[in-house]
């Protein structure tokens, strides 16, 4: 019963929703109609971006209230959140994962590494940025990116 008391004492943790982002949504996002199933793909990240994605779906930022939900399979997904510079071993799995997603699909490159290899540019194991391997629809800046920015990118997709 201490959990019940804790629930009552804590109340609502989610912050009030910020205004809707004004970015023009990608063409594929318009067909989704307020619902986006998200699959995370770690293509060689240091896990900093994963922590921030975890926060974006946590109680404080609560990305789920805008219609985004994490799923377990690329077949169920509309959006791929790709993090990290793409390493040689992850280039082919990344291509296959995106190919397994049914159309219409979107790819969001999360973090500076995913956008332009960031800290790891030129490293021997790195094949390139996410944009060199698959088509990228949206990018989220930052190392690590702020959860607000990840949520804003997801809201651009769901339009809510």
């Amino acid at each position: 019963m201490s959990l019940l008391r804790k629930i009552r004492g804590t109340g609502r943790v989610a912050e009030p929703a910020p205004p809707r982002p004004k970015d023009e949504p990608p063409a594929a996002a318009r067909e989704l109609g307020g619902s986006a199933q998200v699959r995370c793909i770690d293509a060689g990240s240091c896990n900093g971006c994963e922590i921030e994605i975890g926060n974006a779906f946590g109680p404080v930022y609560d990305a789920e209230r805008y219609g985004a939900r994490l799923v377990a399979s690329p077949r169920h997904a509309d959006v791929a959140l790709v993090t990290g510079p793409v390493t040689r071993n992850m280039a082919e799995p990344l291509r296959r994962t995106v190919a397994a997603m049914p159309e219409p699909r979107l790819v969001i490159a999360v973090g500076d590494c995913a956008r332009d290899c960031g800290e790891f540019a030129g490293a021997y194991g790195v094949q390139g940025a996410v944009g060199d391997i698959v088509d990228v629809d949206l990018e989220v800046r930052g190392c690590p990116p702020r959860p607000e920015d990840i949520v804003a990118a997801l809201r651009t997709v769901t339009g809510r």
Partner: protein
Amino acid sequence: MSALGYAAIAAQAGAVVVGAPLLTGWMRQVRARLEGRAGAGTAQPWRDLRKLLRKEPITAAGTGPAFRVAPALLVASTLVVAALIPLVSTATPISGHADAILVVGLLALGTVTLALAGLDTGTAFGGMGSSREMTISALVEPTILLAVFALSIPAGSTNLAAIISGAAEDPARLASPAGLLATAALAVAVLAETGRIPVDNPSTHLELTMVHEAMVLEYAGPDLALVELGAQMRLTVLLGLQASLFVPWGIATAGDSWGSLLLALAVLAVKVAALGALLAAAEVFWAKLRLFRVPELLAGSFLLALLAVTASYFLGTGGGIL
């Protein structure tokens, strides 16, 4: 009577199809609020289904007929159950066929179809999910049957309509030891059958802990929409059955008017929503059981059901089937 009966069937089936995604959305909303989140709203599962229906259908390479027919068969078998069992009215033209054994068989048909589809994909997780689902299902189906049998002894019939209308007239049957034991046994069986938390986690992303999700990993687009709708309908039907069996008041009976049909529909919605909220709230307090402990839980619920049948037989108030 006949027009009213057919209207009752249509109302039951329609309410289950329309209400199932709303029930799931409502349960997610209750859970989100308890976790301090805002939640996506009750209509979110409908938005998900609408989007999935618009998406590109994909049939994974190497899959056969079992994979292709499973979504439609799952929804169809659940829809037949929704039309058969007395959710809104006990006096429909087909309520004479609402036999407990048939209903459990139809639910098992849906389970087996999905397990075969999971095997058909040929992936490691699909096969693992199917094997787990069959293990759980083999323990759950007898429990549901026995729990219903415990209630059928005082009614003298395995017909669900007869059981429910009998219990509505004689509420003492439900407060008897047999009725209470059967309630507890059926509640555990419903949790296992619908893949809720102590047995399976509906929102898991860890492949090694999945049961239901592991079987449907390969579905995409409209097929996935049917699989999700089917799973949501099963939850609604089983919660509705539990509500009808143990809180049988408000259900329309023979000789009732259109007004009482509408009232019965509203009462059903309230009962199922209340049960759903209770389940969602309980899930916040529970952790998922380790897979090897699940058979112990289910064996416990089977034992409760067996005790319920025994109690019903020995402590029966007369008028038994023997």
